[in-house]
């Protein structure tokens, strides 16, 4: 345990810092508010396209998460190291005998907990509300969805820490993070459909690009919960189901973003270690 003493120290101070911050408050209010709004507006009682109750709520929540979760994570965490560097906090905190890996990964784990807590809190709120109202709980969907969100969080946190280690100022970090988010969103559909219609590349390449985009993987993983044949995405479904199979794709949708996020976190750590700290 002594070996992890400083890792836990940084992890705990990061969580304390986050819990006091305005971004955490607004983050919690947004996600908690969305779920509360769903209940108030009667989403769980409505029946649209065959989905009702908590399944319907989770379906809408997923659509919202695709758009706002990545940018929320990027904006609120991409400045973690850059801000400490900018304000000389890093100079002081790292004048203590703390290993750089303990500092970096302590911060990473602290932010992972603080960006995950509000969403899990909102989902648990939905669950409690649903159970209290006597709505049937789709446990399989619920737990798989929690896994998908966790994977997306690890993924974007990895991107965030990678950017934060590379850039010198907070402004640049924010700019790069915003560009990354736009690029990943654009590569979900717009650009790829454009490439396909213009025949710039063959379909397999386009599908491979799509499946290397963690946002697209999250989206497809989420759709597969409600539409196992992926009928809603059209002919691309054949490529995915023929090459992956349903079960493997479900695992891929969780494992791939986590692995990608961890790779970027490690690359971020290497950059952090090899460069001037302040």
């Amino acid at each position, binding site marked *: 345990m002594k070996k992890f*003493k*400083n890792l836990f*120290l940084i992890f705990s*101070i990061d969580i*304390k*810092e986050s819990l*006091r*911050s305005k971004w955490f408050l607004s983050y919690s209010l947004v996600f908690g508010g969305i779920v509360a709004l769903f209940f108030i507006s009667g989403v769980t009682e409505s029946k649209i396209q065959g989905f009702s109750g908590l399944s319907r709520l989770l379906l809408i929540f997923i659509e919202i998460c695709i758009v706002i979760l990545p940018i929320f994570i990027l904006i609120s965490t991409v400045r973690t190291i850059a801000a400490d560097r900018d*304000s*000389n*906090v*890093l*100079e*002081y*905190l*790292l*004048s*203590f*005998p*703390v*290993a*750089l890996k303990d500092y970096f990964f302590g911060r990473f784990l602290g932010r992972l907990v603080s960006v995950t807590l509000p969403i899990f809190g909102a989902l648990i709120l939905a669950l409690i509300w649903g159970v209290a109202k006597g709505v049937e709980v789709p446990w399989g969907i619920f737990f798989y969805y929690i896994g998908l969100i966790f994977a997306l969080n690890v993924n974007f946190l990895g991107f965030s820490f990678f950017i934060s280690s590379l850039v010198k100022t907070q402004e640049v970090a924010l700019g790069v993070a915003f560009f990354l988010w736009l690029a990943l969103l654009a590569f979900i559909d717009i650009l790829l459909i454009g490439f396909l219609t213009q025949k710039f590349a063959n379909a397999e390449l386009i599908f491979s690009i799509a499946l290397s985009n963690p946002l697209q993987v999250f989206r497809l993983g989420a759709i597969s919960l409600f539409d196992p044949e992926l009928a809603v995405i059209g002919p691309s479904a054949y490529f995915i189901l023929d090459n992956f199979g349903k079960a493997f794709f479900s695992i891929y949708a969780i494992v791939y973003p986590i692995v990608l996020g961890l790779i970027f976190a490690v690359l971020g750590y290497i950059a952090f270690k*090899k*460069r*001037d*700290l*302040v």
Partner: protein
Amino acid sequence: MIEVKNLTKKFGEQKSLDNVNLLFKNNESAIIMGQNGAGKTTLIRTILGEYIPTNGSILINTYDPFKQREEALKNIGFVPQLPPPIKLSVKELIHYAVVSSGSNQERIYELCQQLELDLNANLHKLFFKLSGGMKQKLLIAIALAKNPNIFIFDEPTANLDPKGREIFYSILDEFTHNRIMIFISHRLEEVHHIVNRKIEMDLGKVVFDEKI
């Protein structure tokens, strides 16, 4: 002991440190002077393992601050010129110092009392919301309570009133024995009773280094 050998630090094409050689031994208290941009802060940050040297090496009690940073930094108590806006409460910051470097918590409280900082009344306040003088006093108490054999003070009294400065230097008298003290300051007269070596830097080079 701090051994700085052939140290050069470049930022792009700009040389901030140019082949600096310095040796600090126990019982030495040195003041490093020089104009803005002379390389004083770059030197201190490199000693603290925060800037990677372009050339040359540093050893702190035989430890390399880049490859063995924990062992090297255990020996150093550092007070920065401007207290950074740390978003921790005073209590959390003390906890950070105690856990990471084994500082004695009781000693931090005692030193704060000596420095006339009422710690109990401010324990739950956020560090960055304290006044400049209070922040500086707390950082001084934390550095001293660590009881290292090397102290690095970068303009440590910049935010202190005359009485605060007087108390600080009187406390410091207890710590001079068998230690290394490095002051970065523009005011030799303030530390002349403590220092026994004067180093002047200009354009990244040591241009004066003598016992006083």
